[in-house]
C-alpha cells in the first residue's frame, strides 16, 4: 500500500493553500488528489475579476488567482495527481482513490485534509413545481458551459436566487448577448455581495426582485417560461401577484452545499447548520489527523478567506504529522456557541491549552442587522464587542480573538446585540 504523510483531497484554492503551507512547515511527502483535469477547482471557470484583493493586494481573475497557487504548488515541488477521484476515506486514514492512469488503489496517510469544496443546490432540492424541460441549470453549470466549453445555453434568461454565482452569470449572459429578464430572490435581502449587485445587475439594468420566487415552470422539451410571485414574510406565495416570464433558460443560484459525503462515510461529525465538519481551532475534525478547510467546511464569500483558512489547516496538519500523530494533550477545550442572531461559528471548539495562533472566528448572522454589535462573552464577562454598521447573512463575519484572551476563558458565546460599544 502506498503511504504519504499528507493526503489532500481536492486541488482547488483550499487544497493548494493547505499544501503550500504544509510544505513550508516542513512536510515533504504530500499528495493532492484532484478530480478535474487540472488544479484550480471552480476558480478555473470564474473568469471575472475581483479575486485576490486580500491575499495579493491586487484584483485578479479566478484563473489568475488559481495560477498564483498552482505556481507555488509547482515551485515547491508538491506532488499532485489530476483526474483522480477519492471514493472513500476510512477512519484510520486509508484513502481509496481511482484514476484512468493509475487505476484503483488504497493510499495510507498520516494526516488528511478535506478540501472538496461544495456543490450548488439543484432544482429538485428547491421543490419548485412544474415541468422538467431542458433549459434549467444551476448558475455554476451554466458558467462552466459559457466560460469553459464556449457555448451559451440560452437567449432569454430568468435567474432565481441572488447568490454570487447567479449575479455574476446575469452579467456574463448579458455580455454573451442573452437577455436577462430578472433576478428573483426569495428572501427580502440579496444572497450575494453588495459589490456584485452593483457591478452585475445595476450596471446592466437587470431588475432584482426581492421576496419573489418561481412557482411554476412551463415547457415540455424546452423551457418556455416561468411564473414568478411575490412571497410574504413566511415565504409563502401571495396569491394574485403571479407574473409570467417567457424564457428559454432558468438559472438557479440558491445556495451552496459543502460536499461531505466522503466525510460522513468516514465517520466525521457534520454540523447541521453549515453542512460541514465540526472542527476545533486547528480545523481538525472529530477524527484525529483529518482536517477540513475551504468550502467543504463552510461556504465562504471570498476565495481570499479560503486561502487564509486553508493555510492554517496545512500548518496544523504539518504540526500533527511532526508530532508523530500525537495530539498535544487537549486538557482544556472550550465550546463556542452561536448566540442571538448567529447561525454558526467556525470553529465550534477551541483547545485553549495549546494555542499557537490567534483565533479566527468566522460566522454568519441570521438576518440583516443595522447598527448592532458583535459580542463575544464568556459567562457574564465580555471578551470582545465590536459595533458594525451593517451585517447581512450573505457576508461572512470574522473576528480575531487574541490567544492571551482565551487562555483563561471558559465556554464562549458569540451574539449580535442591539446598539453596543
Amino acid at each position, binding site marked *: 500500500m502506498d503511504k504519504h504523510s499528507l493526503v489532500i483531497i481536492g486541488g482547488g484554492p483550499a487544497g493548494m493553500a493547505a499544501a503550500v503551507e504544509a510544505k513550508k512547515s516542513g512536510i515533504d511527502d504530500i499528495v493532492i488528489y484532484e*478530480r478535474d483535469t487540472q488544479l484550480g477547482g471552480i476558480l478555473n471557470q470564474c473568469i471575472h475579476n475581483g479575486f485576490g484583493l486580500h491575499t495579493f493586494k491586487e484584483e485578479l481573475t479566478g484563473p489568475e488567482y488559481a495560477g498564483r497557487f498552482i505556481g507555488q504548488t509547482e515551485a515547491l515541488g508538491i506532488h499532485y495527481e489530476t*483526474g483522480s*477521484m477519492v*471514493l472513500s476515506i476510512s477512519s484510520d486514514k486509508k484513502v*481509496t482513490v*481511482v*484514476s*484512468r*492512469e*493509475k*487505476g*484503483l*488503489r*488504497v493510499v495510507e496517510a498520516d494526516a488528511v485534509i478535506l478540501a472538496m469544496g461544495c*456543490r*450548488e443546490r*439543484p*432544482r*429538485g*432540492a428547491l*421543490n419548485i*413545481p*412544474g*415541468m*422538467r*424541460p*431542458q433549459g434549467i*441549470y*444551476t448558475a*455554476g*453549470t451554466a458558467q*462552466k*458551459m459559457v466560460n*469553459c*466549453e464556449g*457555448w*451559451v*445555453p440560452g437567449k432569454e434568461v430568468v435567474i432565481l436566487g441572488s447568490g454570487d454565482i447567479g449575479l455574476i452569470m446575469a452579467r456574463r449572459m448579458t455580455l454573451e448577448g442573452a437577455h436577462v429578464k430578472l433576478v428573483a430572490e426569495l428572501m427580502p435581502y440579496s444572497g450575494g455581495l453588495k459589490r456584485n449587485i452593483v457591478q452585475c445587475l445595476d450596471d446592466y439594468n437587470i431588475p432584482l426582485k426581492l421576496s419573489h420566487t418561481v*412557482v*411554476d*415552470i412551463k415547457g*415540455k*422539451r424546452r423551457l418556455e417560461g416561468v411564473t414568478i410571485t411575490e412571497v410574504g414574510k413566511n415565504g409563502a406565495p401571495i396569491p394574485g401577484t403571479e407574473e409570467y416570464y417567457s424564457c428559454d433558460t432558468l438559472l438557479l443560484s440558491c445556495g451552496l452545499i459543502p*460536499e461531505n*459525503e466522503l466525510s*460522513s462515510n468516514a465517520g466525521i461529525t457534520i454540523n447541521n447548520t453549515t453542512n460541514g465538519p465540526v472542527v476545533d481551532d486547528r480545523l481538525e475534525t472529530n477524527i484525529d489527523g483529518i482536517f477540513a478547510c475551504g468550502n467543504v467546511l463552510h461556504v465562504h464569500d471570498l476565495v481570499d478567506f479560503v486561502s487564509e483558512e486553508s493555510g492554517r489547516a496545512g500548518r496544523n496538519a504539518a504540526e500533527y504529522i511532526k508530532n508523530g500523530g500525537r495530539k498535544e494533550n487537549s486538557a482544556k477545550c472550550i465550546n463556542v456557541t452561536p448566540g442571538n442572531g448567529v447561525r454558526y461559528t467556525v470553529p465550534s471548539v477551541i483547545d485553549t491549552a495549546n494555542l499557537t495562533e490567534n483565533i479566527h472566528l468566522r460566522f454568519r448572522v441570521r438576518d440583516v442587522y443595522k447598527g448592532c454589535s458583535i459580542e463575544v462573552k464568556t459567562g457574564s464577562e465580555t471578551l470582545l464587542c465590536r459595533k458594525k454598521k451593517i451585517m447581512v447573512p450573505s457576508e461572512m463575519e470574522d473576528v480575531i480573538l487574541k490567544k492571551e484572551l482565551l487562555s483563561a476563558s471558559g465556554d464562549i458565546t458569540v451574539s449580535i446585540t442591539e446598539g453596543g460599544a
Partner: protein
Amino acid sequence: MDNKIFDAVVIGAGVVGCACARELMRYDLSVAVVERESDVCEGTSKANSAIIHAGFDAVPGTLKARFNVQGNKMMDDISRKLDIPFKRCGAMVVCLDENDIPKLQTIYDRGIANGVEGLKIITGDEARALEPSLSNNICAALYSPTSGIVCPFEMTIAYAENACENGAEFFFRNEVRSIRKDGDIYTVETTSETFRTKMVINCAGVYSDDVHAMIEKPDFEITARKGEYLLLDKSAGGLTKATIFQVPTKMGKGVLVSPTVHGNLIVGPTAEDIESKEDVATTKDGLDTIRRVAALSVSDIPYNKVITSFTGVRATSSTGDFIIRNTDGFIDAAGIESPGLSSAPAIAQYVAELVCAELHPQKNGGFKEERRGIPKLAHLSFEERKALIDERPDYGQIVCRCEQISEGEILDAIRRPLGATTLDGVKRRVRAGMGRCQAGFCSPRVIELLANELGIPQWEVKKNG
C-alpha cells in the same frame, strides 16, 4: 419499408412494448417496435413507484391479479437473465385507524385468493419492530415478503436491448398517425415511415385508446392519472427497509414510502385525473400532500434531503382492468396502470401466446435469452473493480461524482445497441446525473461525451426528446 411485411409491429417502447418484443423474439418472427420518442422508457415506464407488487391489491379474477402475481414470480429469473437490479425488500400495508383493520383483512383475503404467498397480519408493535421508523399511529399491518423493488429504466432498457440483440427492429421518433387493414395486412403509418404487418400490438400507454381508435371506435377509454413523487438522497435511503403502503382511508388512497433499488427513498404518489395526457408537471399542492400524508405512516422523513420531484402519468382504463386481447390480428395491451410494471413480464408472455395462436411461428433456435448490462463499477468489490479498470482505464475516470459513474460506463451507454442519445438517456442507463447534485457537475462532461460520440456540436445535445 414498403415491401417488407412484418409479423408484428409493436406500438410503444415502454416496459410492456419492449417486453412483448423480447418475448416475440423467442419465435421466428420479424418484429418492429415503433416509438414516438427518441428512446425507450419515455412514458409511464419512466415515472412510477418502481415497485414489483406482490398482487394483493387487485380484485381476484382480474387480469391485473393474474398477471401481477405471475409477473412477481418471474422477476428473480428475469432479473438474473437480463442482469437488472431487483430486490425482494418486502412490503407492509399499514393501518392508521383501528376502524380500518377490517380493510386490512380484506386486502389479506384478496391476496390469498390471488395466490400471493407469505402474507401475514401483524400488530402495530410488531410492525415497528421490523421498521423502527414507522409512526406510532400504526395499529396493525399486512406484511408481504414477496413484494420487491426494481429499476424501471433498466428493466425496460434490458428488455429492449435483448429484443434488439435477437433481431427486433426499433424505430424511434415514429409517432403512429394511422392504421388501416387491407385483407390480412395492417398498414401502420407513422410520422416518418409506413409499416406493413400481419399483427399490431398496441402498447401505447396513455394513448392506447387513441391508437385503438385508428382501427375502430374503442369500447374503453383511457384517462391519464397523474402521480407526483419526491425522491430523497441516498443518505435517507435506509429509513425503511420495506415498501410502506397505507390502507386506503376515507381521506384517500394514501401514499407509499419505499427504498429504491439504488438506495434512495421514494415518497408518493398522488392520484389526480388530468385532461392532458402530456401534463407531467409537479404542483405545490401535490408535493405538499405527499409530505403530509406520508408522515402519517413514517415518522421523521428528512424532506430536506429531497433531490428531485417528478410526475408520472398512468393509463387508467374505464374498465378498471388491463385490456389484453386479440381482435382480428390487433392486440391491445391497454390500460396498463399499476401493477403494470410488475405484470409486464407476464403480459408479454401472454401477448406472445396470442401472437403464436394466430401466426403459428417456429421457435427461434438462436434466441439468446441472456443480456449483460453495463458493469456498475460503484457496486463491484474492490478487486473486481480494480481488474475492470486495469482492462478498461476509462472505467477509472469518474464523471458523475455523486453516483461515482465513470466515463467508460457513459461511453458504454452511448455505444450499446439502442444507445443513449440524450442526457436523460445516459442518466437512465447508467445513473450519471441521478445523484444529489442532479447533474450540476457532470452534465457539461456528459454533453461533451455525447457530442463527440454522436458527431454533433455540444449545444445540440438534448436533455430529452
